[in-house]
């Protein structure tokens, strides 16, 4: 782990060569969601009339308290769940369960959208790191030499080449996250979905990850991430969508505007009454102060 930055030239090589020629113009909408609703077991709502657009090359952050529907939205955007009501259109085609049964459509969609799950343990399911990274390309039916070349490139890019033959249980949390990202990047997707990418990572790995996301974005990747890490928001997002606890989009705007709308953040339960947001350099930092316990008790009551 000599450096925390990713050389854009190196990035372009493994990720740029076989990219499917995108017909989408820069800035054109890649994802269009209209009035999507979803309820687990048809009983517990997770999305309620959500509409949004994701444009090519932008960095979108989904903000909201736990259980507001951010993760569900990401799963819908990855074609893993399908809305009960409303529509989801990706790359100009409607994404439905039926459409994804079509092998050609499914292969195209799966290779163009990559999802980095919050739980790396669920995503890293293969016996070794190398097999893990090979999993996606194997499903795509790529020739063997191409798979091997790509694996070596992506291992080098994420600085995990020495881990190639390790088993997942021999990896630390940060290493597992890198392997999970490598297993997605190897397919060179246009859109990367991150679910709480910085959760449970040490500060050093967090910084590395933020830098990687920025580099990927500079290389033309569209980024959508769910997060409640307010510290990194201004760095990693151009635009924020704020979810309310009733599973709707409560607000949309630049990170700067959202972070300064204290009333909004309180209303969606993202911050506590005692959370202070400090201006620190270019970013914002939120933290809590110790307060009178009696005050807290009153608050809870």
């Amino acid at each position: 782990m000599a450096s925390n930055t990713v050389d854009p030239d190196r990035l372009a090589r493994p990720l740029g060569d076989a990219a499917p020629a995108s017909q989408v113009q820069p800035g054109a909408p890649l994802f269009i969601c209209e009035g999507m609703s979803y309820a687990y077991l048809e009983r517990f709502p997770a999305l309620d009339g959500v509409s949004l657009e994701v444009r090519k090359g932008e960095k979108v952050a989904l903000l909201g308290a736990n259980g507001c529907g951010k993760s569900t939205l990401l799963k819908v955007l990855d074609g893993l769940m399908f809305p009960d009501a409303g529509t989801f259109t990706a790359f100009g085609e409607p994404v439905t369960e039926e459409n994804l049964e079509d092998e050609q459509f499914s292969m195209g969609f799966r290779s163009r959208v990559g999802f980095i799950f919050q739980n790396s343990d669920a995503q890293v399911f293969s016996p070794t790191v190398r097999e893990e990274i090979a999993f996606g390309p194997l499903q795509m039916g790529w020739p063997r030499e191409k798979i091997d070349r790509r694996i070596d490139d992506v291992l080098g890019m994420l600085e995990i080449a020495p881990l190639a033959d390790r088993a997942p249980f021999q990896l630390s949390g940060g290493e597992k996250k890198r392997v999970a990202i490598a297993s997605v990047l190897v397919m060179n997707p246009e859109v990367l979905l991150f679910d709480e990418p910085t959760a449970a990572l040490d500060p050093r790995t967090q910084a590395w990850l933020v830098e990687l996301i920025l580099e990927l974005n500079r290389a033309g990747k569209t980024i959508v991430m769910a997060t409640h890490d307010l510290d990194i928001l201004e760095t990693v997002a151009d635009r924020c969508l704020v979810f309310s606890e009733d599973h709707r989009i409560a607000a949309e705007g630049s990170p700067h505007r959202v972070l300064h709308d204290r009333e909004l953040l309180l209303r969606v339960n993202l911050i506590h009454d005692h959370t202070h947001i400090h201006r620190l350099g270019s970013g914002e930092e939120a933290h809590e102060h110790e307060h009178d316990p009696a005050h807290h008790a009153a608050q809870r009551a």
Partner: protein
Amino acid sequence: MSDTIAHGDAVPTPTWLVTGELAICPCGCIGKRKKGSFVEKTLSGAVGVMRSAMFGDDVAQQRGFLQRLDPRVKILSFLGLLIVTAFVRNIPTLVAMYAATVLLAIVSALPLGFFVKRVWLFIPIFTGIIVIPAMFSFITPGTIILPLWHWNGHPVGITAQGLTGAGLLVMRVATSVSLVVLLTLTTPWTKLLAGLRALYVPRIFILIIGMAYRYIFLLLNSVTDMYTSRKARSVGNQTNDYKEGQRVVGATAGALFGKAHTLSEEVHMAMVSRGYAGDAKTYSAFTVRAIDVAFAVGCVVAAVLVLGGDRFLGV
């Protein structure tokens, strides 16, 4: 506990080797069972599994004769040798085969003391103990070579047949265990898995076995966490009420199943997200080299010699 493996010059002995209960299998259903906290026992079992897996991978990385062989050739050859072991009918033949496995262990850089200990503790030793009654005439009748007492006018004692049968069983068990230990200690388990395909195990099962093995360690950590936190909460309050203990086991295992099921849903999504549609496609590359062919031929020759020699010895 997951990011370090026991590297170093000294070979660590897996704890289960020394703490193993005397039983035909770890289930302890036959044989002596020790009293003690079920939580402690489960925890030490969990640590044992982790250690043994990591230790096994360490040995498999060493440079030795068997480590250099193609896993498919190795699996087929050892399976063949296991079958030959099962057909042998004379103790000297089995002793010769056992000696050969020790030789193979030496040229494969396995510490000799460790290898012998790992094989004999505890299945062959246990076998040796439970087989004792079978040496007597009331179980294995035949020529009594050591009469011990008379019953209704007939001598009762150890028979030649019983003694030979006991020797055969112990040596056969020891040789079989030796072969399996030799195979698994010299092959990283991922290669073992990939090599299983040479036995026409369907890919889908290879995929499931690989994933099952991978998640054993994750779930093992969950169990360890649940029990460790329980231990922390119940210091000095060790319950002797087995019903309470059973309730704890039921709750822990039930919670574990909940976790496991959620995990399986997440893994499914992670697979689908990367294009999985139900066909098992797996990644592995092997080349059969001259040394592999030589070993396979050697095994066939050995098999013929062993079975031929065994017939020559008669019986």
